[in-house]
């Protein structure tokens, strides 16, 4: 009967190892799939990837040389294997008397922009992270607040109004709201510069550049979170333990703010973890609209350039982010909800 208060550290460790192993398998699958897409599909479509790397007046010999250097002539398994090896021990590309070193962790090397991918990722990751986190703070604040208020004033004008606005927010394409907000607040009224400035250059400039993307992105998500919060809060308010809390003589702010919120936040945190993870790779539209030099922008450019190594790198980093975020959420969940046991 008497189980321990929570899973012990050993259980947590075992759980972590199991999850990390699953994550690794997952990443391998993702790598395989991405390789398949970019090497097998073009071949099927009759396009030689090597021709993407040569210029206007390229001759067949140059194309062949590029193919050699990039290892495009190797079987796909060999290419995948090389990629894996590169992740751990680094990798050397050579051809035509030129040697290019790519240190571990080598996520590949872009021959279009002559860069190792890892620095690109580490350079752009903070921008995307800042975008996602900043927006998350906003949407949590406003979305959850609006959701709670709607739940507490269920059926009121505020509730109906807020929920229709929220539904509207969910129904708007982000590039549409993004452009509108740029046109209005940046170009039109000139309130906000709306231009990305690196944080190390100027905090205020950075903040000014991030505010529109944050708000735009947060608007979409705040709408979703408001809806979820409202529904969850309503469900929680119907729970017996809320009635118990009242029966104890707790004041309403404590009942709502402590007892009800604690339960309401659990699914919200789950969502938050997944959304943050997804945003790290999925902020393509936002970053494009606002010209933010993040991962999404890099990958969109890479897709139009067919710069496979960058696409592969970003896809991996993103999947990793989603997996890590999910893992964190699961761990956090175990902390928040004592009923959850790590298994």
């Amino acid at each position, binding site marked *: 009967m008497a189980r321990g208060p929570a899973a012990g550290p050993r259980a947590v460790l075992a759980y972590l190892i199991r999850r990390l192993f699953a994550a690794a398998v997952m990443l391998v699958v993702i790598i395989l799939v991405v390789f398949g897409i970019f090497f097998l599909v073009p071949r099927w479509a009759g*396009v030689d990837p090597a*021709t993407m790397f040569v210029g206007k007046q390229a001759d067949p010999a140059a194309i062949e040389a590029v193919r050699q250097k990039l290892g495009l002539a190797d079987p796909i398994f060999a290419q995948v294997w090389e990629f894996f090896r590169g992740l751990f021990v680094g990798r050397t590309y050579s051809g*035509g008397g030129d040697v290019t070193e790519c240190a571990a962790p080598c996520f590949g090397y872009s021959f279009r922009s002559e860069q190792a991918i890892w620095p690109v990722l580490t350079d752009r990751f903070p921008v995307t992270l800042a975008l996602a986190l900043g927006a998350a703070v906003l949407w949590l604040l406003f979305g959850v607040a609006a959701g709670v208020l709607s739940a507490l004033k269920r059926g009121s004008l505020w509730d109906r109004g807020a929920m229709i606005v929220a539904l509207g927010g969910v129904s708007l394409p982000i590039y549409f709201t993004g452009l509108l907000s740029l046109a209005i607040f940046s170009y039109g009224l000139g309130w906000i510069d709306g231009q990305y400035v690196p944080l190390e250059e100027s905090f205020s400039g950075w903040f000014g550049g991030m505010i529109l993307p944050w708000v735009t992105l947060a608007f979409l998500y705040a709408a979703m979170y408001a809806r979820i919060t409202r529904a969850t809060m309503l469900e929680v308010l119907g729970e017996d333990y809320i009635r118990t809390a009242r029966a104890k003589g707790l004041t309403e702010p404590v009942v709502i703010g402590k007892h009800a919120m604690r339960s309401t936040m659990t699914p919200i945190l789950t969502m938050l973890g997944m959304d943050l993870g997804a945003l790290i790779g999925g902020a393509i539209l936002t970053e494009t609209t606002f010209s933010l030099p993040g991962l999404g922008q890099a990958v969109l450019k890479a897709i139009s350039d067919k710069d496979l190594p960058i696409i592969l790198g970003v896809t991996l980093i993103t999947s990793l982010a989603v997996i890590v975020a999910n893992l964190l959420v699961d761990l956090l969940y175990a902390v928040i909800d004592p009923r959850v046991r790590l298994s």
Partner: protein
Amino acid sequence: MSTQRTTGRRKQAVAAAAVVAALLSTAACGGGNDDKDGGSKSGAAGFNAANNKVAQASLAKKGGTLKFASAQDADSWDTTRGYYGFMWNFSRYYSRQLVTNNAEAGADGAKVTPDLASSTAKISDDGKTYTYTLRDGITWEDGKPITSKDVKYGIERVWAQDVLSGGPIYLQQVLDPKKTYKGPYKDKSADKLGLKAVETPDDKTIVFKLPEANSDFEEMLALTSASPVRQDKDTKSKYGLKPFSSGPYKFQSYTPNKNLTLVRNTEWKQSSDPVRKAYPDKITINFFTNANDLDQRLINGDYDLDLAQTGLSPQGRTTALKQHKENLDNPVSGYIRYAVFPQSVKPFDNEHCRKAVIYGADHESLQTARGGPVAGGDIGTNMLPPSVPGSEGQKYDPYESATTNKNGNVAKAKEELKACGKPNGFKTTIAVRNNKPVEVATAESLQASLKKIGVTVDIDQFDGAQTTGIIGSPSNVKKKGYGIIIMGWGPDFPSVQGYGLPLWSGDYILESGNNNFALIKEKAIDGLFKSYTKELDDAKKADIAKQINHKVMEGGYYLPFVFEKFINWRSSRLANVYTTDGYSGQYDFVNLGLKK
């Protein structure tokens, strides 16, 4: 119905002409005082004030940061690998050549002037030997002198196409057409200077020995790909990330697709350089992904000019034309936008079917799709760009595309179809790059107008990043049935050779990376090109260019859309601004100055 429509059309055309005329006349007013460095309230020089003339030259001051913005990064900043026009233009900040384009406005800017060399080439009588002597005081960014061996090594790099792909290979084709040299990285000689065709008897002298004369050779040496590179600083494929500077500026930082900063090269001496004025202290480029955002930033004054020099996008163009006309120039780019008919795809093997399409096309609609007369350019009537000697502009209009037939001539088109044996029309496919919305728009326009003569077309938008692989492969073009390919072309250097050789010469039909999409293999044209390379007289060269152009047009291989023009933004801060034919109507970057 149709009469009404024509009337409407005409009215429209008249109105449009009036607008354009009004624009240009105001511009003339604005342009009138450009010598007095006047301009508008904002300080901008006025509409077209820098178009083929120098605006506000005297206002340029030393110092400041010149800020470029761009929606596109260079293909590579490596002098050997870059092929984008703006890269060649920009590379003059950090790279010098033996000879370079004249720092002059308009057509004069396309002429060659000495740079590292003390004078233009001493050419032997047979036109096969070019000798240059380097001037004194020319240095690398570390203060060491630039030698003839550095120049030779830089040129040799063109041969290393397997490592340094992407750039123009004219020098290789002219100096070593048989490709006997394998490039410096596979060079067995100790100094890696094994290229026989180039000799460096001493550090100051360099001699080029051409197997066959080529009258445009010096133009080729003026290309960025002929820049010197120092062997100990050659990082091979990574050279483009930080080229070693021989010019007035050097790389401080560069993150591809993000930003680039140049700072003064303190070892560069003004006295050693007759071309570069080097006004600003610092030059930055910021890369954008949203073209509208970019334009808006330009208009707001956050940046000085667009690096890519492709003109404002429609929204920015409208805003700028309405509110900031004094900041605009409307230069001719030197590009011709056109449709080309591969002869390998039936029925385009028949010249009458090709001509049917040319007659059937609504040229004005195509022009509108390109952006109209101002932002798109004049209706293209032939295939020689206005900046190339021998060009006749709209005066040569074999299909009366800009006059009688500008809205298409259905009757004539039907006649040609009959002559082709397809009186009821046919089906074909237009291939168009998916990353060029304007080209897609022209494809749609062509599709709509060809419908009227019974020619139904599918539009296949192919991946613009794979242009060489898809339409550059004649077998693929045939397989896919691309009867019409929409493309554009600008001269690498302003001559019929620099423009038309890869497009029209039978020798240039390649299995991969082909640009002779029409697969033209006419003895007459090939012969004219041969005689052109041997001809040293400019007037005669121009005449040959004219003949080639006529031959191409008579064959009906091409449907030119426009002689491209674009609307280019210059900030009010800029001084000493001018467009140059040397870089396809772009501003001459290297001599831009700031007012403050």
